[in-house]
């Protein structure tokens, strides 16, 4: 039973990795600075442009409230977080449809 459970989990992981490899990053947007459109305003138009198999990579400051707003917005729009990692004090989120 344990063996089956392990195989199943590995299979799910492998499928996830393959799917991630298939996703192409259309654009990377640095949302760490101030801009008139605001972080979501900068992102919203770019998300409209992506096609199947593509995603947008965004860079945010994990200490700012942008991170929470972004995650909430992704959920509300029905988009999905493809990956989410921290690198050199910045949060890098890949968002797909």
């Amino acid at each position, binding site marked *: 039973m344990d063996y089956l459970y392990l195989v199943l989990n590995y299979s799910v992981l492998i499928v996830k990795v393959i799917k991630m490899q298939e996703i192409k990053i*259309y654009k990377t947007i*640095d949302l760490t600075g*101030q*801009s*008139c*459109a605001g972080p979501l*305003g900068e992102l919203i138009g770019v998300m409209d442009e992506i096609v199947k198999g593509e995603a947008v990579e965004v860079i945010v400051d994990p200490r700012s409230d942008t991170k929470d707003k972004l995650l909430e917005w992704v959920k509300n729009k029905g988009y999905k977080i493809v990956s989410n990692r921290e690198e050199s004090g910045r949060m890098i989120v890949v968002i797909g449809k």
Partner: protein
Amino acid sequence: MKKIIVAGGGIGGTIVANRLTKMLSDQVENSEVEITVLERNETHIYQPGQLLIPFGLTDRHELIRREREILDYRIKLLSGKKGEIKKIDPQNNSVITSDERVHSYDYLIIATGSHLNWEEVPGYNAVYSPWDMDSSMKLREAINQFNGGKIVVNVAKLPHKCPVAPLEVTLMLDDYLRRRGIRDKTEIFYTYPIQGVFGIKSANDLMIKIFESRGINIISPFNVTRVDESNKTIESQEGEKVRFDLAIGVPPHTGAKVIGDSGIGDRRNWVPTDKYALKMKNFSNVYVIGDTTDIPISKAGSTADFESYIIATNIANEILGNKPVKVYDGSVFCYIATGLDSGTYIRFNYNNPPIPPPPSYVHWWGKLLYNKLYWTVTAKAIV
């Protein structure tokens, strides 16, 4: 001889060409450097001024000059077919114009700007827009004949040029209707693609307070899908449908068509640009200025003005054998009209958010002065 080409003679292209000529004055005089501006149009429009037309605060003739009169006499200007850019080819350091001439360069500054794409939203042609000179003139007549009803102010997509201008047109409209004594017969609806009325928190908070005190309705997020001219309604992805008697809006913006034709932009024809160096990504001798870039910063005249210092200084340094030393810190300065005789402003950069002061007559006066000084000071890169 070093050749510098400025592709586009709008606000950004004109200021950076004039600033470069000042910085390399001796080299231009001695024919060691040649600066050429390529611009299809012979006239130059100060677009931020179009916002004041509907309220009778300025007129078309005050906002248009001949490009040749604004540029330093030592700059070579090619206009018409000779200045219409057909292709930008950074791989081969050249720009091709509609007269089939190939212009080679040592440095290129892409300043092709942003453009209105009315067709992107079905029915948007029924909306008046101060972002277009002719439409702004028609809006003046429409407002003049307006005697009460529902007015919708809409922003179709972000980003667009003059990001604070939708706030300004709404608040000036409110003041105008009060002065005409018909505000109590009018409902104003402000519709915006993201939550709130503006993207930066400090300015958004102040503006929401002002909107509430003036009785202006906010519907956001509101991402327009169509405008129905016959039924006079505007609809959104979010399922809202708002009826109007008069609609004022910002059509969707894209970068110039030539960017797409040249295969050097993203899908909306913005040019991928390093946000600090202002260089086109992967090309060390190509700079990008103003609305043309894809960087997450305001598409505004002041942005182009700030950027022109960095680009001109770095190109001049390279030509003079020095290291390019300046980086763009995201500086922006915008006046915000809050009525027909009051205003505030936002001044910020990537790392420091704006702290808009309380609206006052002084800032309104500053806005008008800034507009007036454009032709003699800003465009000519005097400061």
